[in-house]
């Protein structure tokens, strides 16, 4: 195996924890059981690395196979790097009829037309998702497998999730996608996060939403904390109402795990003139950036709202995270987030 292959493999080994690595190798059909058992994951990475290299060499495997391995590994633990969502617009009539095989070959052909050196790998994940690994090169250099772009797309849906794509390559990818999915336009969905699952669930509505209904929802029962006949909660219905509102705004149960929400304000500064005259005097929009960050943003918002720390009904600025499925907003003078959905 050439030196580049070594580096690729080494990087893969180093940045994945031993157990995950083990699992990945398990998923990978190429290894025989004996080979799989031979690798001892308790020893330090370096040694593991050596063993793997040995195995690869005796089977004469090359970069191609390593990328395969890497891809599987990425598919298994996808919550790495920064994922960005794109939304394709105005579909043609046949958009819904696209099926995998044709998409595969179309995408590959389109992309290779656009870019000279590019290596594309497409795999279908268990959840019907198409995983695309693109190693970009350009007309002079061969595909760079060290920083590949990953694209995840569910056929028949307008959404595409992309990670580690640089602006130079974006137009190519976009075009190839449009051409091979039968849509006519594509735009940034203004949603990004470290967890692929989170942004996918948010856009594909794969989390539990709560809607107003005439039957009293299970939420109210959940909210009941009557521990003793002598303890009475006045305003308990207010609490349950708050909870209902909070859940309507941010979802119930396990919500998509977003980390950030960013609001770019371009509004006129309001405030009494005498306190900060400098701010009120200046003409032109008052720019500032508000950023909420948390390990699980929606959950914390929901908690805030239900516990009454935040006001209910929830401010549209916050509720539009789930409503519009985005976590980057530009708030202009009219107050509400400018919606391009």
């Amino acid at each position, binding site marked *: 195996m050439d030196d580049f292959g070594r580096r690729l493999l080494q990087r893969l080994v180093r940045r994945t924890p031993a157990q995950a690595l083990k699992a990945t190798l398990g998923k990978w059909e190429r290894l025989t059981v004996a080979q799989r058992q031979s690798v001892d994951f308790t020893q330090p990475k370096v040694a593991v690395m050596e063993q793997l290299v040995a195995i690869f060499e005796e089977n004469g495997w090359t970069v191609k196979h390593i990328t395969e391995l890497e891809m599987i590994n990425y598919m298994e633990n996808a919550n790495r790097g920064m994922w960005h969502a794109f939304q394709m617009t105005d579909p043609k009539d046949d958009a819904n009829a696209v099926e995998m095989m044709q998409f595969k070959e179309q995408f590959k052909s389109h992309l290779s037309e656009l870019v000279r050196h590019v290596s594309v790998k497409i795999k279908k994940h268990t959840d019907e998702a198409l995983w695309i690994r693109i190693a970009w090169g350009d007309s002079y250099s061969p595909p760079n497998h060290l920083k590949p772009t990953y694209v995840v797309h569910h056929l028949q849906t307008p959404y595409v999730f992309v990670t580690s794509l640089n602006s130079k390559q974006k137009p190519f990818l976009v075009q190839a996608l449009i051409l091979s999915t039968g849509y006519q336009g594509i735009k940034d969905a203004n949603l990004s996060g470290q967890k692929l699952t989170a942004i996918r669930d948010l856009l594909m509505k794969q989390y539990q939403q709560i809607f107003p209904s005439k039957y009293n929802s299970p939420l109210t029962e959940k909210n009941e*904390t009557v*521990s*003793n006949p*002598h*303890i*009475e*909660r*006045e*305003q308990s*219905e*207010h*609490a349950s*109402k*708050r909870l209902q509102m909070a859940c309507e705004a941010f979802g119930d149960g396990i919500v998509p795990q977003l980390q950030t929400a960013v609001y770019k304000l371009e509004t006129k500064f309001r405030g009494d003139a005498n306190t900060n005259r400098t701010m009120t005097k200046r003409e032109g929009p008052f720019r500032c950036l508000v950023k*909420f960050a948390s390990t699980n943003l929606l959950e914390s918002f929901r908690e*805030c709202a239900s*516990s*009454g*720390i*935040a*006001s*209910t*009904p929830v*401010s549209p600025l*916050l509720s539009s995270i789930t409503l519009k499925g985005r976590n980057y907003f530009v708030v202009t003078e009219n107050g509400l987030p400018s919606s391009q959905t």
Partner: protein
Amino acid sequence: MKVGDLSVYIDMSLLKPFSKLPALNAATILLVEREERFQQNLADALVGDTTVTVNVRLAKSLPLPMDNEESRPRIDLVVFIINLTSELSLKSAEASLKYLDPGYFLGKVCFLATNARNTSVPTERLDAMRKLAASLHCPLLFAEDQTPDGVNSATERLLTVLKVAAGLVPTATALYLSSLTRCTIPPDIDQPSFE
């Protein structure tokens, strides 16, 4: 983030201390806390008292909703739990005060402050807290809500006040006790403690 409890009440009725008859050998305490955290523990501890039956009503703020007006027993003591690390907590308590009948301020209101020894408590807020309590002639108790012992002692102190306020102690009245325990604004002892 916009903050403030927006739950709007249509009926702005005062809470009155003597509008109802007392129950036999029972006392009712109303715990008002914006965060609704500490009140639950306190309530559990309060009802544990075996000598009298203690009813606890929990509220986030005043006024109380009209619809459980009739189910509500006569409230003998109103306790405002204030988390000194949050300005909001104090503000909401202040706002709630105006829904109390003046009668309550004759010894049937008391403030319970938590986190007083926390680093992040500005002196101003502490002073404001004391001024408020002093101006209303109410006792201001401090509690350690973090530790079980703290909760227990807070409970017992509230019970001590409650029993008197509910007229269960034959030799004392609420007004009498409050005249002994009411908060006073202490002098700012401003000799730096290390110098």
